[in-house]
């Protein structure tokens, strides 16, 4: 019983560590797209681990937490995709050192 509680707390701690890393990444990255990269991955894993930790801590809630994990895994990438897409259409340029922007090139080709 006691070991389950410690394990759950540890998993939750690791999850919050990843969430913190995501926050640092959002501050340090140069443009929106790179920020979304750091933000999405870190928050997804961080939230999943936090929920799993709660599920291990309270074994009765494990089913609920697994459902929430699935929900987060579906919605989080969709929302970051929608944000990145909207930013691109709003005309947000990539950061200076970027190599290529195939989407913008193709868009111009469509308009011409």
């Amino acid at each position, binding site marked *: 019983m006691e070991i389950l509680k410690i394990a759950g707390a540890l998993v939750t701690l690791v999850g919050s560590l990843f969430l913190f890393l995501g926050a640092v990444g959002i501050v340090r990255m140069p443009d929106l797209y790179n920020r979304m990269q750091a933000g999405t991955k870190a928050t997804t894993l961080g939230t999943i681990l936090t929920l799993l930790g709660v599920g291990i801590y309270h074994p009765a809630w494990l089913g609920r937490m697994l459902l929430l994990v699935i*929900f987060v895994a*579906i*919605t989080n990438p*969709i929302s970051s*995709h*929608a944000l990145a*897409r909207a930013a691109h*259409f709003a005309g947000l340029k990539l950061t200076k050192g970027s190599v290529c922007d195939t989407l913008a090139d193709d868009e111009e080709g469509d308009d011409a």
Partner: protein
Amino acid sequence: MIKRVLILAVLVFFLILFLSRVAGIDTPAQLTGVGAGYVDRSVGELNSPNVVTAVVVTYRGIDTLGEVSVLFLAAAAISLLLGSTGKKNGKGGAKEKRSASEILTTGADILVPVIMLFGVYIFLNGHLSPGGGFQGGAVVASAVLLLFLAYPGFRLRHGILAALESLSGTAYVVIAVLGLILASGFLDSRLLPLGETGRIISAGTIPLVYTLIGLKVGTELAGIIDSLGGDR
């Protein structure tokens, strides 16, 4: 500038007045008065573990009826204010909206039924766990909002919306009046058998009334989103 200093002085005066009344308050160690009465009677009388639900739906049910009507009036006024000038700027909308991406559309198709069912779950379990008609209605309205975002051309069918809205309102009042006739008072929930604690079908009419409130709040909030969000 002088205006701001004056405003600041007045605000600080009222804040000090408020804080001097409040700062010394001791947290009571025990619940007393009306609240304690409701907490004591809620399970025995109405079989509703969630006391807040019992207060909202039964003990103070007539207030809730009034609040729901205020909500209806606000929704109607908004659609009156924004809906009428529709046809005039047909050309203004020439800047056509970009259709949502396939990923968002498919995602919405998957998620909308789940979110809807979650809203229904919240308002059906209002008497057992935290939740109820208002929260469930908000969740249902947010599912409609997701449909709006995924399908920019999406329009609510106002006929169905109005029918559902008025039907649930009428049913609410009918149940309230039936309580007056068949049980001991207006909106008395002991119209139906109280049932076994912890099941959805228990606590008399509470789940029924909260479902009606949930439908009403959901349709009204969806209507507000529709009239504010659609660019007509």
